[in-house]
């Protein structure tokens, strides 16, 4: 047995470093596990950008893919896959490249020199309408959920540390010059940009690194749960919560015990009461910002009576917002936090 174990240990690395066909299979499996939820099983896009778009494949290098997987896009949903090793990242890239109809472009690392000030003017005139005045990108996520499906991408955030690290100057320049067929990004060479214009606008975009659009929020010191003492009994507290929510344009959805549905009727604990409420306009906006926001739904507060004392508890949206890597959602979570506090404070006054 011992000899078998030694032999297995010796040969195990060889077994796990698969040959080429094995790598392709691994890449597909890894892609399905880590990427397909957002980018689609066949790379058609969704929450994430469509990776199989021929012009996208023709415009980005393997190094761009590699750095994007490693670094993600802080604040723009795409997470950083730091736990994937080099072999796994390479396998994913090979799988994604299997959709390409042309070879990856040979972008070199030569910096593009240009007039930043002049580039700023060109950017404001031609690029800001889609990419934002500060390069912050278009609103929302990809083509998913209530969005027109004829627009395959939301304009990417150029003022993003993940993008600025992943994209070389040459890649940015080529993209501005050639555009990207199948997306709203047009060829600015065809729009009349000179070679100098291209250099200047790239120099300006590169300067975003000196003035980031926003700094990631650190909510790690926020409590996970909002807890308020109520001076009222349980029934009065619940009634007050419903009134306070309705007073802030929320619709009362239902009131139920925490254990309803889990325990037979009559056996559920009547001292833990959940009030569900919803502001559909706010919900609709939130879902357009990030379809994953359903994990916050519906809005709820729980009143709990124990030993004659009543407390009201709710999630802390500010703390949970960090789970989404979505700076637009962070702002809505701040708003939601304020509403929760207002509703509970009014009910427990």
């Amino acid at each position, binding site marked *: 047995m011992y000899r078998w174990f030694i032999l297995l240990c010796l040969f195990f690395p060889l077994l*796990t470093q698969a040959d080429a066909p094995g790598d392709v299979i691994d890449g597909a499996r890894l892609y399905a596990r880590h990427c397909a939820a957002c980018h689609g099983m066949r790379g058609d896009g969704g929450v994430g950008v469509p990776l199989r778009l021929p012009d996208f494949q023709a415009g980005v290098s393997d190094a761009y893919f590699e750095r994007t997987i490693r670094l993600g896009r802080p604040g723009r949903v795409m997470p950083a896959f730091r736990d994937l090793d080099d072999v796994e990242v390479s396998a994913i890239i090979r799988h994604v490249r299997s959709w390409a109809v042309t070879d990856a472009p040979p972008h070199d690392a030569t910096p593009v020199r240009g007039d930043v000030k002049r580039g700023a003017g060109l950017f404001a005139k031609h690029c800001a309408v889609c990419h934002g005045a500060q390069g912050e990108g278009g609103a929302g996520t990809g083509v998913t959920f209530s969005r027109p499906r004829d627009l395959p991408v939301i304009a990417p955030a150029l003022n993003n540390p993940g993008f600025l690290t992943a994209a070389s100057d040459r890649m940015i320049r080529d993209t501005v010059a050639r555009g990207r067929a199948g997306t709203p990004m047009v060829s600015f060479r065809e729009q009349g940009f000179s070679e100098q214009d291209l250099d200047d606008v790239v120099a300006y975009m590169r300067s975003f690194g000196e003035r980031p659009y926003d700094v990631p929020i650190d909510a790690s010191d926020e409590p996970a749960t909002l807890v308020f003492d109520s001076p009222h009994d349980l029934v009065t507290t619940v009634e007050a919560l419903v009134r306070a929510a309705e007073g802030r344009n929320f619709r009362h959805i239902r009131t139920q015990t925490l254990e309803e549905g889990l325990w037979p009727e009559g056996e559920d604990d009547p001292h833990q009461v959940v009030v569900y409420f919803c502001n559909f306009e706010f919900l609709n906006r939130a879902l357009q910002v990030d379809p994953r926001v*359903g994990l916050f739904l519906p809005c709820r507060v729980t009143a709990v009576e124990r030993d004659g004392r009543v407390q009201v508890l709710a999630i802390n949206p500010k703390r949970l917002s960090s789970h989404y890597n979505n700076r637009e959602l962070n702002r809505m979570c701040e708003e939601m936090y304020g509403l929760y506090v207002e509703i509970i404070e009014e009910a427990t006054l």
Partner: protein
Amino acid sequence: MKRMLIGALVALLCGLSVPAFADQLMMVRSTQTFPEAMLRLQEEIKARGYSLSRVQRVDVGLTGMGYQTDLYRVVFFGKPEEIRRLSREYPQMIPYLPLKIAVFAEDGDTLLVATRPSEFARLFDDPELSGIFARWEADMDALFDAMRVAE
């Protein structure tokens, strides 16, 4: 000695099969249609010993108010005894109970999203809870794997 060797081998293989995840959310795409995926999800939840609490029909509420939306539901589930014990011994966890999975349609596919249970360990620092969160995570991993391969 033999048991130790077998244990070491199993640990090695398990370690290699542990998936690497990027963020605090679990997300999976099922190629099943929304109704099929909803049905399968509920079966998979029950198969792992959890009970369904209820299903929140987010899309029905939205369309009722005049908003356009794809199919969207939130499925609540848990183990009754466990939810009762946790809510009594760890009241700060109450707003996070029972567990939930958001399910929404995207063209012909269905996406499922959940908070990664191990993330709760960062919210609620307690050794006993960590064990529970690890078990939930293993169950959710298996559940999401089943949804990913479901045809």
